[in-house]
């Protein structure tokens, strides 16, 4: 992998070819997917991009700043409901997308600060538990804010949400280009792709900046970071706000894409899945996070084929695939984490954190357990 990369860097022409290939692959992805796997997978492809945006957002909080946040799905919910309430018959409001997108980022970012502020003194496990509580609070609020005034329509959720529409082009409908039919999943794919690339760009730029270094410093040693003049409070809140705003954007896209939101979509399991994506992919490393999002979104779907597979192998379905599916999924996670404890594509810095010094480890081994006894 590294050999290929360094070779690419050395040869400009090769680099351009690689870029071109990537662009070609990304633009034709929905067609390839439909041809290879069927139309339902184009929808899954859209979800892959949505989860990529979410995972990249959480990566800022957990991967860069080292703040373990288990309530991240709360910001996803805020973004989704903001879009749902302001672009649906529920209140009779139909605000345009170009207004709702930045609004979602802003309001979710605000919630990030709001929820981040009381947790600033907490670290590690304690922070995780408090953020977990916050995520649940948001869900419970959404579930119960249908009385006395019906704000969120409670457990029934909000229906008939406007599809995204820009300059009269509705992403919700079927479009015909060059005699080819494009269903809405195709249009959304390209929209999500653009926004995902934007979020990747922002993540890369942030990582390699004064702010990114301050986040890394806080993750490494908060006391030393403070003693170096970093305003740890503000810098941590900034991480919460940035991460939350990415979550808010993906939430809005999710609401428009689904046309329906309910509190159920934003349970703890979602937060855990997003966290799994970045841990399994490689915390703090953008490529790793992307890989994690791809794997953890597609794997559960792919495992649905366990039923047909059993039929093919044994002639009948022995174990109900819906039961087997999550079992195999869990097993796959465990196996990956055993063999790649720092994730599939770890960031170089994170890898160092997890690797014990060979000499030191050996020394400890020798002093703690006397080998002669």
């Amino acid at each position, binding site marked *: 992998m590294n050999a290929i990369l360094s070779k690419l860097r050395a040869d400009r022409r090769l680099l351009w070819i690689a870029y071109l290939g990537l662009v070609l692959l990304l633009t034709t992805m929905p067609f390839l997917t439909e041809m290879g796997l069927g139309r339902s997978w184009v929808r899954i492809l859209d979800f892959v991009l949505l989860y990529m945006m979410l995972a990249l957002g959480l990566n800022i909080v957990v991967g860069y700043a080292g703040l373990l946040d288990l309530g991240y799905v709360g910001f996803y919910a805020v973004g989704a409901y903001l879009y749902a309430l302001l672009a649906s018959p529920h209140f009779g409001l139909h605000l345009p997308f170009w207004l709702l997108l930045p609004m979602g980022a802003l309001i979710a970012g605000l919630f990030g600060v709001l929820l981040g502020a009381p947790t600033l003194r907490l670290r590690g496990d304690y922070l995780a538990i408090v953020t977990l509580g916050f995520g649940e609070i948001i869900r419970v609020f959404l579930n119960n804010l249908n009385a006395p005034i019906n704000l969120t329509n409670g457990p029934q959720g909000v229906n008939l949400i406007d599809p995204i529409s820009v300059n009269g082009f509705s992403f919700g409908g079927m479009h015909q280009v060059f005699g080819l039919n494009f269903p809405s999943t195709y249009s959304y794919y390209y929209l999500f792709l653009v926004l995902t690339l934007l979020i990747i*760009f*922002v993540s890369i*730029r*942030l990582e390699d*900046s*004064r*702010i*990114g*270094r*301050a986040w*890394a*410093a806080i993750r*490494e*040693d908060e*006391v*030393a*970071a*403070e*003693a*170096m*003049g*970093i*305003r*740890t409070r503000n810098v941590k809140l*900034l991480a919460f706000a*940035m991460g939350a705003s990415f979550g808010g954007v993906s939430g809005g896209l999710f609401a428009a894409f689904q046309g329906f939101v309910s509190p159920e979509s934003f349970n703890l399991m979602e937060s855990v899945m997003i966290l799994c994506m970045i841990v399994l992919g490689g915390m703090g490393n953008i490529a790793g996070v992307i890989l994690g999002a791809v794997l953890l979104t597609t794997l559960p779907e792919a495992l649905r084929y366990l039923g047909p597979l059993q039929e093919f192998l044994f002639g009948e379905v022995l174990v109900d695939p819906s039961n087997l599916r999550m079992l195999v999924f869990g097993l796959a996670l465990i196996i990956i984490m055993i063999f790649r404890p720092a994730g599939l594509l770890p960031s170089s*810095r*994170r890898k*160092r*954190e997890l690797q014990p*010094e060979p000499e030191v480890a050996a020394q400890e081994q020798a002093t703690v357990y006397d080998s002669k006894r």
Partner: protein
Amino acid sequence: MTVSASVAPLLKAENISKNFGGIAALTDVSFSINSGEIYGLIGPNGAGKTTLFNVLTGLYLTDSGKVNFAGHDINGLKPHHIVEFGFARTFQNIRLFANMTALENVMVGRHVRTRAGVIGAILRNAGTRNEEAAILRRAKELLAYVGIAGRADTIAKHLSYGDQRRLEIARSLATEPKLLALDEPAAGMNLTERASLAGLLQAIRSDGVTLLLIEHDVKLVMGVCDRVAVLEYGKKIAEDVPAVVQRDPRVIEAYLGAPTA
């Protein structure tokens, strides 16, 4: 402040007291450091030296007393605020950003003197690019200054002990301090490293940075310090030029015990 003093001291601590539960870690400690001097702080283990450091640099709150630094009352201020005023420190048990490179560590030290925010980071406009280039340049200069330019890309935790201490000094210098407080910079160094550390401290001072030094190595303290204060059981028992402190019976008693008559 006495009328005769022509310049106000850079740091002035008055009647500092700090208790942990029932234990008085510091009792009524007063001292002042003048601009341009190397001020030593010695005392037996547990005398309260590091506690005093932590109080001065904002890691601990005082129970009573006042600290004034360069005309600012820094009591109760957050550490990052105190650094902004120009008072930086190192730690007794080295606190580098262990998994970052030496260069990155020093670059973090520039944080407090630079401005770029999120917008600058994303747009990477000319202002931000210039600032980043300046950060990098200064960080390299500082690594060379403390003598570890060759280890710029080494992960901090892979550096030798002495180099880690030097890196910590470089990182603090990156914050452009007027006063640099060093907590046992020679700990764990061998004789050659100590000798070159003494040279480094002199160089830092001659570049206009005042130094406050906690140190156990008596030779180093006596060699480089202009004035020395001695702490014992949280109280200041002596303060003078090294040669006088060295002969002070109370100091000798504190270190060696009272003569059994």
